C-alpha cells in the first residue's frame, strides 16, 4: 500500500487520461421504446378487463360497482409495478432520464396507484354487497373472513397506505432518513401480499387464461428487473471492484477527499460528473448509503471523492480508516458531457458543487473552451481550486472565482453576460446546493437559454432511494 503523503497520487491535470472503458452513451430511443411498451401494457390490461365483462354481469345487481372495482384494481396495480420499475435503476433508463429525474417521476406518479387501489377496495366491496343484498360493512366482514387471499391483500393495502403516508412531504421532513427508508421498503411487501387474491377471484381473471398469462408476465418481468438491477448489479459491481479506503486527505475547512483503491477500475465506465451511492463498511456507517460525486475521473487503481461535512454521515467520513471496505451502487447521473449540445460550455459551481464540476471538466471533449465560474463565501472554501485552474488552462478556457458573501458578490445577469459574452452559444452546467442551482438556472433561462442547453446537479438533496 502506498505511503500516506504522496503528491504523485493527486490526480494531475497534465497527465493524459488513462485508458479505460468510456461510459456507454445514453440512447433516448431505447427509453422511448420502453415508454411505448409500458403504454401498450397499460392499454392491454385495461382492454382485457373491459372485454372480460359481459352485458349480463354489468346489468346484474352490483355489476357496475364490481366492474369499476375490477378496473381500478387492474390499473392501480399496473401503475404500482411501474412505480417499482422507475426506481429499479435500470441502466439504460437511468442514463437517459437520470437518477434524480426518475425519482421525480416516481414522486409525481405516487398518488395514483394508491388512490386507485383504495377505490378498488371500496367499489368491489360495494358491488359484492349489492349482489348479495347485504350492507356494506357486513360485506367487508364477509370478504375478509371467507376469502383468505383477500384478507392478506387488505393487509397489503393497509401497509401501502401507511408507507405511502410517511412519504408525504410534511411528514417526511420530520422523520430521520433511515426511518423513512425502512418504512418505504415495506412497499415491496405490500405489493407481494396482493398477488394471490387477483388470480384467485379477480372477475377479469377467472376463466380467462390470456389475462392470467399477461399478469404473470408483468409480475415476473418486474420481479426479474428489480432483483437483477436494483439488487444484483450493485452487488456484483461491488464484489468485482472491491473498493477500499486508502487515504483521507483534508482539502479545506470541513472538506475531505477520500481516495479509494479497487480492482478492474478501468471497467467502471464512469463519465465525469456522475456520482455513486457509497456504503462504507465501518461502524455506524454501514447501514446507510449516501450519494457523492467522484471529484476526478478514475485513475486505476484509484478513485477519489470529496465530501463536505454537513451532517452525521459526512462528518464521519473524516474519521474513515484506511482499509475500510466500500460497497458502491452506480454510476448514476446525467450531469455529463453526453448531454452536451453545443461545442462550448460554461461550468458554474458553488461550494462543494465543485467536485462534480472538477470531474466533468476532466472529461470534456476537446474544443469545449470552458468558462468556469466558482462561487464561494470565503477563499478557503474554494476547494480543488488549483486543480480546476490547471485543467481550465489545459483546455484553453477561462477561469473565474467569485468569492465573498452573497451581498458582496452575486451571480446576476450583468455578471454572467460580462464573464460569458457568448452565453447563448454554450451549454450551461450548474452544480451546487439547491438554492444556488435553481437560482442560477432560473437566471439563465430568463436570459433566453433553452432548457435543453442547461444541466443541473443539486447536492445535498435526498437523492437516493
Amino acid at each position, binding site marked *: 500500500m502506498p505511503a500516506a503523503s504522496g503528491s504523485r497520487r493527486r490526480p494531475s491535470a497534465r497527465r493524459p487520461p488513462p485508458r479505460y472503458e468510456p461510459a456507454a452513451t445514453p440512447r433516448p430511443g431505447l427509453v422511448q421504446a420502453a*415508454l411505448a411498451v409500458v*403504454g*401498450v401494457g397499460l392499454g*392491454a390490461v385495461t382492454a382485457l378487463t373491459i372485454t372480460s365483462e359481459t352485458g349480463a354481469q354489468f346489468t346484474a345487481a352490483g355489476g357496475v360497482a364490481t366492474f369499476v372495482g375490477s378496473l381500478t384494481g387492474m390499473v392501480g396495480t399496473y401503475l404500482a409495478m411501474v412505480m417499482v420499475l422507475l426506481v429499479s435503476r435500470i441502466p439504460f433508463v437511468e442514463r437517459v432520464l437520470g437518477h434524480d429525474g426518475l425519482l421525480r417521476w416516481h414522486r409525481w406518479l405516487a398518488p395514483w396507484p394508491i388512490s386507485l387501489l383504495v377505490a378498488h377496495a371500496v367499489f368491489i366491496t360495494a358491488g359484492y354487497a349489492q349482489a*348479495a343484498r347485504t350492507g356494506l360493512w357486513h360485506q367487508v366482514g364477509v370478504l375478509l373472513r371467507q376469502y383468505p387471499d383477500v384478507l392478506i391483500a387488505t393487509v397489503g393495502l393497509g401497509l401501502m397506505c401507511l408507507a405511502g403516508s410517511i412519504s408525504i412531504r410534511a411528514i417526511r421532513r420530520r422523520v430521520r432518513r433511515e426511518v423513512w427508508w425502512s418504512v418505504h421498503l415495506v412497499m415491496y411487501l405490500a405489493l407481494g401480499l396482493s398477488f394471490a387474491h387477483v388470480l384467485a377471484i379477480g372477475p377479469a381473471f377467472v376463466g380467462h387464461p390470456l389475462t392470467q398469462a399477461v399478469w404473470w408476465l408483468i409480475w415476473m418481468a418486474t420481479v426479474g428487473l428489480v432483483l437483477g438491477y436494483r439488487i444484483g448489479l450493485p452487488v456484483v459491481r461491488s464484489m468485482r471492484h472491491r473498493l477500499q479506503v486508502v487515504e483521507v486527505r483534508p482539502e479545506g475547512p470541513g472538506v475531505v477527499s477520500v481516495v479509494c483503491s479497487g480492482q478492474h477500475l478501468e471497467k467502471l465506465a464512469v463519465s465525469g460528473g456522475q456520482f455513486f451511492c457509497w456504503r462504507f463498511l465501518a461502524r455506524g456507517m454501514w447501514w446507510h448509503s449516501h450519494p457523492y460525486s467522484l471529484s476526478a475521473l478514475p485513475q486505476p487503481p484509484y478513485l477519489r471523492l470529496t465530501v463536505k461535512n454537513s451532517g452525521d454521515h459526512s462528518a464521519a467520513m473524516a474519521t474513515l480508516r484506511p482499509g475500510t471496505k466500500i460497497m458502491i451502487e452506480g454510476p448514476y447521473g446525467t450531469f455529463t458531457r453526453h448531454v452536451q449540445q453545443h461545442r462550448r460550455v460554461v461550468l458554474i459551481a458553488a461550494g462543494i458543487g465543485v467536485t462534480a464540476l472538477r470531474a466533468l471538466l476532466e472529461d470534456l471533449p476537446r474544443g469545449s473552451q470552458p468558462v468556469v465560474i466558482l462561487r464561494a463565501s470565503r477563499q478557503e472554501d474554494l476547494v480543488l481550486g488549483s486543480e480546476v485552474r490547471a485543467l481550465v488552462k489545459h483546455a484553453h478556457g477561462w477561469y473565474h472565482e467569485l468569492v465573498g458573501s452573497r451581498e458582496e458578490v452575486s451571480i446576476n445577469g450583468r455578471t454572467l453576460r460580462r464573464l460569458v459574452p457568448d452565453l447563448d452559444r454554450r451549454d450551461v452546467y450548474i452544480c451546487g446546493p439547491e438554492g444556488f442551482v435553481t437560482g442560477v438556472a432560473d437566471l439563465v433561462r430568463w436570459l433566453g437559454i433553452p432548457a435543453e442547453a442547461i444541466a443541473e446537479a443539486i447536492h445535498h438533496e435526498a437523492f437516493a432511494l
Partner: protein
Amino acid sequence: MKRSPAFIAAGAITGFTGVLIAHAGARVPLASGSHPLAGGSPGSSASAGASRPAAPAAHGGTGAGSGGPAHTVVGPGVNFGYGTIAVRVTVAGHRIVSVRVASLSTLEPTSQQISYQAIPILRSEVLSAQSASINAVSGATYTSEGYDRSLQVALDQLHA
C-alpha cells in the same frame, strides 16, 4: 424527456385496440347452436382446476311421461371458475324430462349462494326450451356457463 406522454399514449392506444381486435376475432357466444362443445369434449375450463369427470351412465328405465324409454346421463363436472358443476339430464323419447344438478362444489359460500339461486331458473329454462340453448342468469354468468356446458355434453351423448 420530451414527448414522453406521447409515447406512452401511443402505446396505450395500440395495446388497447390490439386486445379489442383480438377479442372480437375470438369471441364465441354462450349457448348458441354452434356451441363449441356440441359433439365434442368439454373445453379448457373443464380440464383446468378441480373437475371431476363422471363416467356417463346411461340407464334404461321405464318411460316417463311422453313414451319411449327414459335415458339418464350425467354430464362431466365443468369448472366454471368459482366451482365445479355437473348436471344430470333425463331424456324420454325426444323430450327432456328432468334436469338436476348431480354435483356442485364451490370455492366459497357466496358462489354457492349465487349458484343455488340460479339453478332453479336454469332448470325451468331448459325444460321450456327443451335444449341447451338458454340465456345465462343475470349475476350468475359463470354458473350458467358451467351448467350449460355440462348439460350440452350430456345431451350429445344421449342423442349419439
